């Protein structure tokens, strides 16, 4: 495998663009929660952009992903337009799920996003099933499941890894290890190392120690993707990263479960700043290019908020659609 640094300049710049989209989209979503524009809650990927985008950019058109509650980064990483995503968070008719999913349940089939899951680990076998259909139908596509270090203790992950391994399915199990499950430090509830769990299930278990380095993540996932496409089967990848904000917006936990030094260590490693510097240093972009890109994406995010806020609410009857393929009324629906 060549390193990601050998990718075309435009691809490298697109990586930075997607990280910026995630960052600015999530910062905006956070504000909109505070202002009461977004009901319920949202979980931001701020701080984890390299882990998300490095993984998504190793896939190609036709590939599928599933995700979890930390949900905006995955479709954005796959190239989903921002407007319908933000409209979904606000609950509008123009939302990517017609306002019926919300932040935790984003899905954008146009970019291969089969659905984020509010239930931890529940979407992992869905991705594995997408790998199964590819294998049975002989289609050249792979599937990747995103899940956290907390979800890595759900049994369904190991059932899915085992089945994918026994059947040599084109699947990547991507663990976003941000060191915590809500308020619970991963090391206090996890026996052994997650990446070490691949071997016993007959697949490589790779750990990306610096998940703030986009190219390191890309290289690991690209290798696993090549393995999957060549019919050799699944891989488990554990990316070490950190969330810069609280577990979810609006949540207040009055116990300091993350220590200051640790926070300081990780926040000083901002994946977007790091990649920006590298792009300039390696001559892929100038300071001005970067400023222009940042301005452009800031404008895109303004536009997506405007689109979301000005879009109409879904009509009440929409609540009674899409339960089944044919619209028949269940007895006593109302």
């Amino acid at each position, binding site marked *: 495998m060549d390193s990601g640094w050998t990718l075309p300049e435009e691809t490298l710049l697109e990586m930075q663009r997607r990280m910026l989209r995630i960052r600015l989209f999530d910062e905006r979503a956070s504000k909109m929660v505070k202002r009461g524009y977004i009901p319920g809650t949202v979980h931001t990927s701020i701080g984890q952009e390299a882990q998300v985008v490095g993984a998504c950019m190793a896939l190609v058109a036709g590939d599928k992903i599933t995700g979890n509650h930390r949900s905006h980064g995955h479709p954005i990483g796959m190239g989903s337009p921002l407007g319908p995503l933000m409209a979904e968070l606000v609950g509008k008719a123009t939302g990517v799920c017609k306002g019926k999913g919300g932040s935790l349940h984003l899905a954008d089939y146009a970019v291969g996003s089969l659905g984020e899951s509010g239930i931890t680990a529940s979407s992992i076998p869905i991705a594995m*099933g997408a790998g199964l259909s590819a294998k049975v139908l002989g289609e050249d596509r792979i599937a990747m499941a995103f899940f956290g270090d907390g979800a890595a203790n759900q*049994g369904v992950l190991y059932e899915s890894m085992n089945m994918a391994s026994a059947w040599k399915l084109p699947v990547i199990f991507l663990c976003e290890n941000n060191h915590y499950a809500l308020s619970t430090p991963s090391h206090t509830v996890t026996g052994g190392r997650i990446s070490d769990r691949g071997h016993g299930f007959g697949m490589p278990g790779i750990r990306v120690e610096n998940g703030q380095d986009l190219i390191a993540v890309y290289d690991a996932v690209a290798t696993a993707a090549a393995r999957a496409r060549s019919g050799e089967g699944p891989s488990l990848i554990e990316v070490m990263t950190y969330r810069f904000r609280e577990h979810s917006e609006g949540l207040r936990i009055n116990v300091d479960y993350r220590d200051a030094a640790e926070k300081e260590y990780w926040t000083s490693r901002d994946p977007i700043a790091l990649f920006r510097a590298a792009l300039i240093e390696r001559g892929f972009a100038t300071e001005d290019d970067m400023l222009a890109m940042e301005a452009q994406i800031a404008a895109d995010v303004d536009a997506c908020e405007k689109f979301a806020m000005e879009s109409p609410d879904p009509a009440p009857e929409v609540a009674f659609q899409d339960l089944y393929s044919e619209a028949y009324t269940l007895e006593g629906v109302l």
Partner: protein
Amino acid sequence: MTVMTYIGAIGAAQQEAMAADSRVVIIGEDVEANVYGTTGGSKTRAEQGDFVQQFGRNRIRNTPISEEAIVGAAIGAAMTGLRPIVDLSYSSFMYMAMDQFVNQAAKNRYMFGGQSSIPVVFRSAMFYGLNTGAHHSDRPYPMFMGVPGLKIMAPASASDAKGLLRTAIDSDDPVLSFEAVLLWGSKEEVQDGEFRIPFGVARVRREGADVTLVAISGCVPMAMKAAEEMEARGVSVEVIDPRTLVPLDTQAIVRSVMKTGRLVIVEPAHKMCGAAAEISAVVVEEAFHALRAPIKRVATANMQIPFSPALEAQLYPTKEKIVTAIEVVCADQLNSVRRTV
């Protein structure tokens, strides 16, 4: 017309569907060796009819014992181009995959605003009454009736099993098929060739004027016997088999009660919060003024299932319990009959 057994009809429906559409696959534990009798004409590999021979191991897949991942994989595969039939063998094993049934199969199309289509059938058999003990005797279909987004079929005869299963496989929504092991060997004339039976249409097994007897799954044959016995005693019983529980053909039931004014419901599930409770509640809401007697439920006692033959049978519905229930709701009727005799 050909005479088929209930289990043979299920195998035949699967074979037709596999032959008709290469996107149809069967996954489950021990399906290759046809351990449960629906993936082969006979049980010998050599013999014509064996699914592995006909369709190959790419489409007939033995799985690990991982119900949660099996069900999830089938959902994910259905969302991306396959039309899987999952053989879960015993209905009692479905709990292992409950999250996938409720949070993925039932919700994905809705949550994602109609983006996903989930054409998958989950087959399982209810093995109650065979001294298999509490871990292999459950009849859990009512808990799935309360999960909007799932369709549920519970055939009670060979032709219904064949026709409904083809409809299920054609459906773009997840379908749970609850099959009755007690009926595996039961025979019925089945029309030749491929056919489908629509969901949501009850089957009137027997017309009658005095009392409506709604019977589900394995309880249909004993309901028919009870009806014959009451006929001889001057009570005309209309026997209705809903065949599918979601959607449920409440109109057919309400129409019948409007005519008879009396209702008895018999089912294999536990009485508490069962299908009979739902049917009773709907009829009271929609046919109250036609009702001339209390509605009686004949269901399994709210107990776990004991192993000993000396203990188990008494918990389930029987022809005798149905007759007793009919005697209660038709008391006046029976008295007048007695008077006329």
